[in-house]
């Protein structure tokens, strides 16, 4: 159902016409292939390089790696790579969902405070209820989801005017809420008497460093991301209808309130998974949906799979650069995305200037 939209097309196709179905499928296949290749290449590079041929042999069941290489590949590098790809996909899809909900292309999970909410919720899990988070990410991630839902609902209530969220109101509300939440996390850190793991976890979250998850942790978060993306599919065509405005969408029989709640819950689930994987990583949820929108047009049904794949590729590349560019030290990937994403955000803001200063 995703892309059977363009059956007949007039000869005078406009410049912004989305590509045909065949082109769309080709794009998806290309993105999937690129993601796969990216994972393989990223697995080879690092402080200890692994030749691509031995990697391939090892993955196909052969024993071409020595003990150290095997250890590095399976306990350090692969989990890290998969974590980066999953966080990128989760951030991009939640960005896409929030942009549709707010009817505003600047709604990035970091900018509008959803990441901050997830961070505070997860910090609560780490500092106040550490015994719950011992068994993997379970409780921490759940508290992260709750935190994200609360903060995004608050921002939505503060920023919406008659169902529209003006750029200025959205950015100010998001800024205020996420600043408050970040400092609440610092407060939790000060109150913590453990001086140990909690502080280290929080510090890496605040910098936006992709975590080094264990395989069971990765499995829990992979389930969260997959459920989130799957649950986004039925929401996509509803976001298209919502683009007409709430009253019109309601007239057409869309359950606006239910849709809104569903988008907030699913977007928060994805944000919380991303925060558990890599902390506060800014602007990915802004850049990736925007680039896909430039190629595919605004149809959310088509954008969802492409955005998920492209998000995975984007953060995978960014994280690979971040961990190799100043080797043997590492740059938090959040720093890198802020360098790339900040100017991009300002560019988009300039595009929206007419609305901002009207």
């Amino acid at each position, binding site marked *: *159902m*995703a892309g*059977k*939209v*363009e*059956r*007949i*097309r*007039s000869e*005078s*196709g*406009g410049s*912004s*016409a*989305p590509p045909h179905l065949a082109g769309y499928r080709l794009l998806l296949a290309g993105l999937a292939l690129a993601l796969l290749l990216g994972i393989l290449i990223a697995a080879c590079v690092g402080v200890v390089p692994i030749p691509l041929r031995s990697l391939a042999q090892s993955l196909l069941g052969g024993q071409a790696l020595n003990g150290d290489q095997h250890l590095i590949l399976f306990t350090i590098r692969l989990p890290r790579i998969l974590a980066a790809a999953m966080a990128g996909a989760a951030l991009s899809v939640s960005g896409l969902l929030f942009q549709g909900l707010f*009817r*505003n*292309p600047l709604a990035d999970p970091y900018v509008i405070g959803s990441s901050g909410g997830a961070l505070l919720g997860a910090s609560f899990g780490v500092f106040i209820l550490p015994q719950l988070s011992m068994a993997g990410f379970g409780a921490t991630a759940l508290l992260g989801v709750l935190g994200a839902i609360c903060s995004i609902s608050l921002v939505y209530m503060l920023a919406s005017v008659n169902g*529209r969220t003006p750029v200025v109101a959205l950015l100010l509300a998001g800024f205020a809420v996420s600043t408050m939440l970040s400092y609440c996390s610092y407060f939790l850190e000060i109150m913590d008497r453990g001086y140990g793991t909690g502080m280290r976890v929080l510090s890496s979250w605040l910098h936006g460093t992709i975590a080094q998850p264990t395989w069971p942790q990765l499995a829990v978060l992979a389930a969260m991301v997959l459920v989130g993306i799957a649950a986004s*599919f*039925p929401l996509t*065509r509803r976001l*298209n*209808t919502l*683009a*007409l*405005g709430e*009253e*019109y*969408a*309601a*007239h*057409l*029989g*869309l359950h606006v309130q239910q849709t809104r709640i569903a988008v907030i819950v699913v977007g928060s689930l994805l944000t919380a998974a991303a925060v558990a994987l890599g902390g506060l990583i800014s602007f990915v949820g802004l850049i990736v949906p925007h680039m896909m*929108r430039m190629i595919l*047009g*605004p*149809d959310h*049904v088509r954008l969802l799979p492409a955005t998920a794949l492209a998000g995975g590729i984007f953060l995978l590349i960014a994280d690979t650069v971040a961990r190799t560019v100043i080797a043997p030290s590492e740059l938090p990937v959040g720093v890198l995305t802020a360098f790339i994403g900040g100017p991009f955000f300002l560019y988009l803001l300039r595009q929206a200037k007419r609305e901002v200063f009207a």
Partner: protein
Amino acid sequence: MTPLLRFASLGFSFVDRTVFTGLHAAVPSDACIALIGPNGCGKTTLLRLAAGTLKPTHGDVLLRGKSLAALSQRSIARSIALVPQNVEVSFGFTVQQFVEQGRTPYLKLFGGIGATDREAVEHAMELTDTCSLRSRVFNQLSGGERQRVKIALGLAQQPSLLLLDEPTQHLDIGRQLELIDLVKRLRHHGIAILASMHELTLIEDAFSEVWMLSPGEPMRQGSPQEMLRPDLLGRVFDCPPPSGPILLKPSPKHSERVRL
């Protein structure tokens, strides 16, 4: 026979202001009604009440004898399409994607657009002569194009009744006549029409009945000839009685184009 839509002692008040009370009227299934009245008299409110997006404070709106309150908005939207005055679309949706939204009341919980939906969309775009616009971005259309595309979305709902809110607003005289042509064409296709109008000169040609709202008075109903009298218009619109021909006769050449 039960009329398509009936307003039964309908009343509506905003928190601080009563818009109308005790309004009785019926829209038969072959109606073509122009709704006129001064600014703020409740034309848009009446259309929104008819579409079920506003709930009446008193009385009832009945669709084929059933109260709108007892029907789901989905089933209302399959019989009644409201074409609003202004539509603000976020992002650069194309005309085709925009018109497809008219199929929303027919889509299943997890379903998308299917073959019957595409057929309805094509038909709606053919009727409104918007097929050539299909890949254009909705937000970049001119006023006249935009109006026709909005009506195409309404027709994609396959309604029995089309509610038009100021369809000729902001249009030049050529586009206004084009729109009146479209209204007549839709009448021939058996779609009932209730349209709020400010361009009184366009009414007699296309509409068979006029409803005149006036603050603090019961609504008047009658034929265009009965309602568009200078003395009555002058009183209701609070202006000197309009002199000269209030009714514009379309040229014969133009009428021929209508038949095509």
